[in-house]
């Protein structure tokens, strides 16, 4: 894959919004603004970072995408998969800012999360960057399109979307 794996370290003490356990797949600077709730975000006019809980309707953010720089999506438990849909909906609506998975995020989920559009990870428990790299490299292809740029097997078989191939 063309994109590199970079581990971002910030000098912030303790557990800030980003710390040594964080992983980022973006070239821009991390957003350090505190993420506010969806209610606070829609009520206030100036917040640029919002935190989505599993029960939130991410579509409430769509009218204000242009002022958003960071969306944190929380996974209180790894088995609660609502955040995968939330992420894809944001990307489908054209959101290009940082999409950060926080909470109970495990290495065996990273590849699917990346496919759904997450480009930053700040899990509760630190991830081994080598394990993350291995997990992201594991599957040489994908069957179905998602929020990433990978060209599905369906297209490869029929010579479609070659320009999208990332290898």
């Amino acid at each position, binding site marked *: 894959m063309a994109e590199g794996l970079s581990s971002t370290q910030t000098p912030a003490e303790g557990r800030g919004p980003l710390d040594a356990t964080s992983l980022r797949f973006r070239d821009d600077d991390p957003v350090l603004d505190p993420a506010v709730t969806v209610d606070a975000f829609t009520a206030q006019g100036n917040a640029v970072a919002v935190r989505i809980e599993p029960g939130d309707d991410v579509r409430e953010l769509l009218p204000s995408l242009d002022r958003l720089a960071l969306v944190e999506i929380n996974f209180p438990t790894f088995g609660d998969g609502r955040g995968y849909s939330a992420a894809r909906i944001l990307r489908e609506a054209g959101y290009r800012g940082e999409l950060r998975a926080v909470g109970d995020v495990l290495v*065996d989920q990273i590849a699917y999360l990346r496919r759904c559009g997450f480009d930053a990870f700040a899990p509760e428990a630190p991830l081994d960057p080598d394990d993350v790299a291995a997990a992201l490299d594991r599957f040489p292809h994908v069957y179905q399109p998602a929020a990433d740029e990978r060209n599905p097997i369906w297209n490869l078989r029929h010579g479609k979307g070659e320009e999208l191939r990332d290898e």
Partner: protein
Amino acid sequence: MYLYDQYDQAMVDARVAEFRDQCQRRIDGKLTEDQFKPLRLMNGLYLQLHAYMLRVAVPYGTLKSTQMHALADIADKYDRGYGHFTTRQNIQYNWIKLEDAGDILADLAKVEMHAIQTSGNCIRNISSDHFAGAAADEVADPRPYAELLRQWSSFHPEFSYLPRKFKICVIASDRDRAAMKLHDIGIQIVRNDAGELGAAFYVGGGMGRTPMIAPLIRDFVPLDQLITYAEACLRVYNRYGRRDNKYKARIKILVHELGAAEYTRQVEEEFAHLLDQGVEPPFAELKRIRTFFEDPAFAQSSAAEIDRSDPDFALWVDRNTHPHKVEGYTSAVISLKPVGGIPGDASAEQMHLMADLAKDYSFDELRVMHTQNIVLPHVAKSDLHALWTALEDAGLGSPNLDTVEDIIACPGLDYCSLANARSIPVAQKISERFAATGKTAALGELKLKISGCINACGHHHAGHIGILGVDRKGVENYQLLLGGSEAEDTALAKITGPGFSEDGIVDAVEKAADVYLSAREDGERFLDTYRRIGMAPFKEALYG
């Protein structure tokens, strides 16, 4: 038969490597059991009563001979010489070691098989009509659509942590041989007035502790929007399906609580949005897949007459064959329900034999039925006697398809850690009872289904006669249900009243059968009589 290309093979091989790594991390203590459990389940590996159990996917129930041979070899090499065919058209091995799991998956991958998503809260193996591609009454072979759905659902990044498991079934005839309306999504391939093929979507069916029949939510989805529509159905479920209570997390509860109309509205809205997102595969892919399911080289004008001079053979032909779309051919069912046997179990030796017979007599093809039997879909009528003779010699010639001896039974408390009562001994005693009394033939079609707990793997809600094993103060107890159906006239069975002991339930089934025999009118099946006369006469006989 679908054949893997380099891409399919690469994906399955990668999964083998991934799961090997996950198993090793568990063995090394890098993963706790809580973290490992969802990973192993997504590869079909359970921890059951006596050992690990591995469930291997048989996509839409279709196998070729080499695959059946490989399943037999796995039974011999890694298990105890047998496997169990399930009500989801899969096969399970009961005595698997964690340390062997990677090797087994590697052996499976060599024959284009896997255990991907055979458990876990994800989209499970796609099931289909076991007579697909052979049945005289289908509008098309449903399997290309099932295969497309298989690919779409494999490693789906958004739908691998759903509220609960998700089962999809695809059929293509008005006759329902696959319990389509009792799936999370049931799809019927239909032809519209313009002669075009499309997909009718039934969503929110299921058995378990809250059985529901899926309502129709869209009567015609064009085939070039099939995947997009499925994606919309799943997204609404993933976002809004209940996650607060495991027992209310299936999509049937969401559809029920929202109402079918409101669920449909949400799906249609999501669908309209997704149509612009490029979710659908190129139509060329569906065409490519269809080429794998073209008819084998059927002989022209095969002898259409079967020599019925041997009465045992004639009985088997009458019971265990199904009309084929091509003159001179038939679909033959190999019963895995010998009297007193374990429903759905097959030894490695039997699997090898069935594979050989498929090679000799059925263009290399076999099917697994959700009723836990095996089909040879394309048998020339002229070969039927030779086939039957070979089956008889191997103890596989039971002429009892759809009779009271053809019992669906889950593994129950003999194997399953969720079970409350044993299912298999009850099935054994019932088949022995009816074989001994000679009533099997007189009863005709009588679908009997047994589950060892409320999860209903044995489809008891859908039995003409259903039996549910429960735990009553530490003692096995069996409830009797009547009037269910999983065919096109899908219906949920109703409980008769207080439960019975293990021997008592065998007597109760016989009493219910006797009520039918004395009350039936011409041509009525058990189910028809029940529907006409209702529960009362049965209750009277059972409890009066």
